[in-house]
């Protein structure tokens, strides 16, 4: 996951130095490194940190939230959207991606705020942000 984030988005691997990644079934969870974790080893833990990656088929998909948290470190594979593009993506439409980039995920931002992920296929981007979370946003 760490090398994928570096290769695809240019997010330095050192960004992950301050985190642990825990795997549970098909998901990976991000937790800030802390010595206190040792004190919790005898507790029954229901959930750890922030869900960061999920395995979907043979692929690993970063979560919307981990992209929002770490996406500002990205130097490539990003798409800054304008108002109309946001509206179209959120309505379920695709928008063209100008640069040459291999098919896969791209980081979507709006007014330099990281929204989440889009999926680039053959020059067109489709939103991967859960529709339930964005359908109630007003003013877009």
């Amino acid at each position, binding site marked *: 996951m760490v090398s994928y984030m570096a290769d695809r988005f240019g997010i330095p691997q050192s960004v992950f130095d301050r985190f642990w990644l825990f795997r549970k079934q098909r998901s990976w969870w991000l937790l800030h490194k802390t010595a206190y*974790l040792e004190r*919790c080893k005898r507790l*029954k*833990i*229901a*959930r750890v940190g*922030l869900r960061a990656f999920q395995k979907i088929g043979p692929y690993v998909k970063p979560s919307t*939230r981990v992209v929002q948290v770490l996406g500002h470190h990205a130097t490539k594979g990003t798409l800054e959207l304008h108002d109309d593009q946001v509206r179209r993506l959120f309505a379920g439409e695709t928008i063209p991606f100008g640069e040459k980039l291999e098919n896969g995920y791209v980081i979507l931002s709006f007014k330099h705020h*990281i929204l989440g992920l889009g999926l680039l296929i053959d020059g067109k981007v489709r939103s991967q942000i859960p529709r339930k979370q964005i359908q109630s*946003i007003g003013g877009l």
Partner: protein
Amino acid sequence: MDLQPVTVADDTLFCAPGLKSAGHLLEYFLGYIHPQALTSCLISLILSARPSSFVLDMCAAPGGKTSHMAQLMGNTGLIVANELYRKRQIPLAHTLTRLGVCNTLVTGYQAQEFPLKARFDYVLADVPCTGEGRWRAVEDKVISRRPGALTKLHEMQKRTIVRGFDLLSEKGKMVYATCTYNPEENEGVVDFLLKHRDAVCLPIDSPFPGEPGLCEWKEETYDEQLRRTIRFYPHRLDSVGFFVARIGRRG
């Protein structure tokens, strides 16, 4: 949007008068904001957990105070966010996820029986209560509990405050809070702790007007230290009524 800082000393809280639903804002989706009653926000400020510290939130759902503590701690250290009920762990997880909190574990113990397997720098016991302080805020103003249930609730609150205190490290600090006025759930519970443990009520530096805690109620008299606790009333703050006690170890 009209935003006003709540206090000069704090840059995490803003009043947004006139804002009807924060959930429809892009900033909400981005995890920049979380709407809370003013008095609820004060609890985390009163506990003042330092960055890189070890914190227990005994009754964490729906996660507003947990996430505020995480913010005050700069997303460092570790917060154990405990919530017994699975269905309440869902909104807790949702809040922590939306706000990008990366320094939290969730556990599912009964607060009053949280295992004595670790000692924490800070403990927050924002316990279940009769919720009288929310009467102005909620539409359903009828809170009915059977007398037996009320006794059980007081018992649970007493056991929770004692367990929270027992989980404190040597120099640890604890906050006990409810959103109710009933002295039996507030001063009565803290008084019980003072009688059964080597605990002291610490002064609270509140940025807002509150009344000191009661030292007598009906036939009951409480320790004089209860004056150091604070009662926040809605008619003073235009927010949810709250009771707060800040507690440490004697000496």
